[in-house]
């Protein structure tokens, strides 16, 4: 599979790091991994590190928006950091950027999520 995903806890925030290509085929693995991490952490704070995600299509948007819905219900917060140009463009086009904040890097994003 041309996608690697890991979800770790950093200072009470679940950080999902994606590397490779997020499409319909690879979306299920991301969903499973991130949902399991959120469950285990019991935290409603989620950060997507997309610095190494080279491709994403609307299936990826579905995964992000699905988690956003769930986190919003739990009064949590979700953010994105470091998206590559094509991924940022898709987030912009789909309106995700108007509801989810974007930060340059993980450290800044985690600090912002914890402050909020």
């Amino acid at each position, binding site marked *: 599979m041309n996608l690697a995903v890991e979800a770790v806890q950093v200072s009470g925030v679940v950080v999902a790091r994606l590397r490779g290509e997020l499409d319909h085929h690879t979306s299920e693995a991301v969903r499973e991994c991130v949902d399991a991490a959120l469950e285990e952490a019991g935290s409603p704070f989620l950060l997507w590190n997309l610095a190494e995600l080279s491709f994403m299509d609307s299936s990826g948007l579905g*995964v992000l928006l699905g988690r956003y819905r769930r986190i919003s219900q739990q009064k949590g917060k979700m953010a994105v950091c470091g998206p590559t140009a*094509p991924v940022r*463009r898709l987030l912009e086009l789909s309106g995700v950027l108007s509801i989810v904040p974007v930060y340059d890097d993980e450290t800044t994003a985690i600090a912002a999520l914890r402050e909020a």
Partner: protein
Amino acid sequence: MSARRNYMRLEFASRSENESFARVAVAAFVAQLDPTVEELAEIKTAVSEAVTNAIIHGYPDGEGLVAVTCTLDGDTVEIVVEDRGCGIEDVELARRPMYTSRPDLERSGMGFTIMESFSDRVDVISRPGEGTRVRMVKRLQSSAPTFD
């Protein structure tokens, strides 16, 4: 076929593994027109959307064939994605932003919107029970001039 025209056709099983194969193959073919990195990313995304639709919605209950043809003519790229699956009852509704016929699958409903944003023209012909044909046309701004 004129010297400026080139053509390729792919046929593959409607398996999700083939989504990346299809978009990478089309991008590799289009590369001969010297597109920008951004144009290539747009083409890959649009192909991925159309092929994913064929796989998920064209053949929801089993495996079928998806065909992708790509024609290069001067600075213009035409991509046709076809399936012989179940077809779309209401194409206008399917093209509406945020609409999805499969909310159970956590789809964003943005597939056609993305195809439309990343191409100059998108035509959809679909007959319930017979299949769907999506045709996307994109003119490359960056394409090297031809001298013929």
